[in-house]
């Protein structure tokens, strides 16, 4: 079978100057703009109040006691255990002792949670709006242009990725349409932003989405009823099996060193 004829399309060089370059430049500039917009929109994380810190860290103390109990002598472990269990069960460390036993409030009515959601919303909006605008702009002005040819051959599966907006079946996959170029720049500009803005910029939408996930996961934590956490930690402490690490340490040391 003969080699298929290499497709040649004579492109106007103006395509390069008036489509390829503008799309690239606009994408980079929006990324930078978005970065600065995000910096401006970012609300400073709200400070925790002292009782909340106390509640959280006291719980951590219980966890520490549970995981590292073996450094303590049995008597001092027993003393700590009985103190912490009693305090946990009576809710002595709770930030808000009156709320003990009440059902937890609806997160929608909680202003603190709302604020967190607002932050996320702002991020989403700052991402979505320019994206929609630019895509509309490209669709309106540049759709249907084939603007460049990749210097390497590709399998036909890339056709949908590289030639969106150009409904030609027989066109070689190496030709890239303007809309596809937009998508490529959308996902591929992270290194450029890193170069211009430093490594922890918020220009790219992909990283944005990642960051959007994490506070969501973090938010679930404090949402839990602290009293329940304390009660379960008290139970964990009650059942722990204690062994002193100093037991027989002198023999271990002698065995290892002599």
């Amino acid at each position: 079978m003969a080699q298929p004829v290499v497709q040649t399309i004579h492109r106007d060089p103006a395509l390069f100057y008036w489509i390829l370059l503008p799309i690239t430049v606009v994408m980079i500039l929006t990324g930078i703009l978005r970065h600065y917009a995000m910096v401006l929109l970012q609300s400073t994380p709200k400070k925790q109040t002292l009782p909340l810190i106390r509640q959280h860290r006291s719980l951590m103390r219980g966890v520490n006691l549970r995981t590292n109990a073996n450094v303590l002598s049995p008597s001092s472990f027993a003393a700590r255990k009985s103190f912490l269990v009693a305090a946990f069960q009576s809710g002595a460390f709770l930030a808000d002792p009156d709320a003990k036993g009440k059902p937890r409030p609806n997160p929608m009515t909680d202003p603190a949670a709302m604020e967190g959601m607002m932050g996320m919303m702002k991020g989403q909006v700052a991402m979505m709006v320019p994206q929609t605008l630019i895509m509309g702009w490209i669709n309106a002005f540049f759709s249907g242009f084939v603007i460049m040819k990749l210097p390497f051959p590709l399998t036909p599966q890339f056709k949908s990725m590289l030639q969106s907006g150009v409904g030609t079946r027989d066109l070689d996959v190496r030709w890239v349409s303007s809309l596809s170029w937009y998508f490529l720049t959308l996902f591929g500009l992270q290194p450029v932003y890193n170069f211009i803005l430093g490594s922890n910029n918020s220009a790219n939408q992909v990283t944005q989405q990642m960051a959007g996930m994490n506070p969501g996961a973090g938010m679930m934590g404090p949402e839990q009823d602290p009293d329940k956490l304390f009660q379960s930690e008290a139970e964990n402490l009650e059942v722990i099996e204690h062994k002193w690490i100093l037991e027989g340490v002198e023999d271990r040391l002698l065995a290892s060193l002599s």
Partner: protein
Amino acid sequence: MSTDLVNPPVQLQPEKALHLSQLAPQILKSSPTTSLPYPLSLLTTPESQETWVVYENLVFQCLRTGDDDSAKECLDRLVDRFGEDNERIMALCGMYEEAVAKDDKELEGVLKTYNKAIQADPTNMLLRKRKIALLKSLSRTNDAISSLVELLDASPIDSEAWAELSELYFSQGMYQQAIFSLEEVLLITPNAWTIHARLGEILYIHGQSPSVNDAEILKSLSESMRRFCRSLELCNDYLRGYYGLKLTTKRLLDVLPSAGKQSDADLPPPSTETVHKLHELATRKLAEIVRRSASKEKGWEGFDPAEIIAARELLDRETQKVDR
């Protein structure tokens, strides 16, 4: 060179500190404050995270070596960058004020500003720690202890604060409380061999104090010995650990034969034979460390000279006794 300033060791020898602080004028000159107008400044001033860590450490070292002017300069830049309300900056500024204060009266003034700031924002742990340090340097130890207890009530997983509390109690001769605090430190950092050894030291000293009875002496001595053992198990060439082990085992060898049966202890006291072996081990290891670090063998540098001298002195004392 810069790595040193980014991440200096916790306990810096005086010469090193002086060396670092002498870098200050050079660093200050090489990074001028006046920057280019906005679009150009993007290209020229790579503000890395290290920049500010370097400045912060410079402040510490300059204050330590008495170069107050350079410290002020660094501090001003930090304030320019982060604003005066930043917790860390507040603590640094306070430290500078403390350093340049001429007498106790001025220090009292600094204390007042601390109190005001802490009242405004009780979550500012750094400033609360500064206040405690200031109380300590004003030798108001009791106030320092009560402030520290207050801090620890709010933040009981702060190992640094527990360790400091332990030292303060220790300085007051309240050994039980000091031991309790150190145990809290261990709960947070279970493998810190220095803390294990320190606990052994306090237990040993507690065992020496005149008020305790014989059973208590035996109990704290054997726990002390075991703490040193644990510390050595975690760090095999810990000079302080061997020093303490030698002291405790020697003392135990005196005490053990006369000791009666014990019932309330957590663990039975060690057998005389084991203690004897441990004593030998400690003596041997101490001699080895002293000898090797004196001849500056490779891999045996870095021991504190003062500790080496103390260890040698301990060994010499023993040999003299044998001679006699």
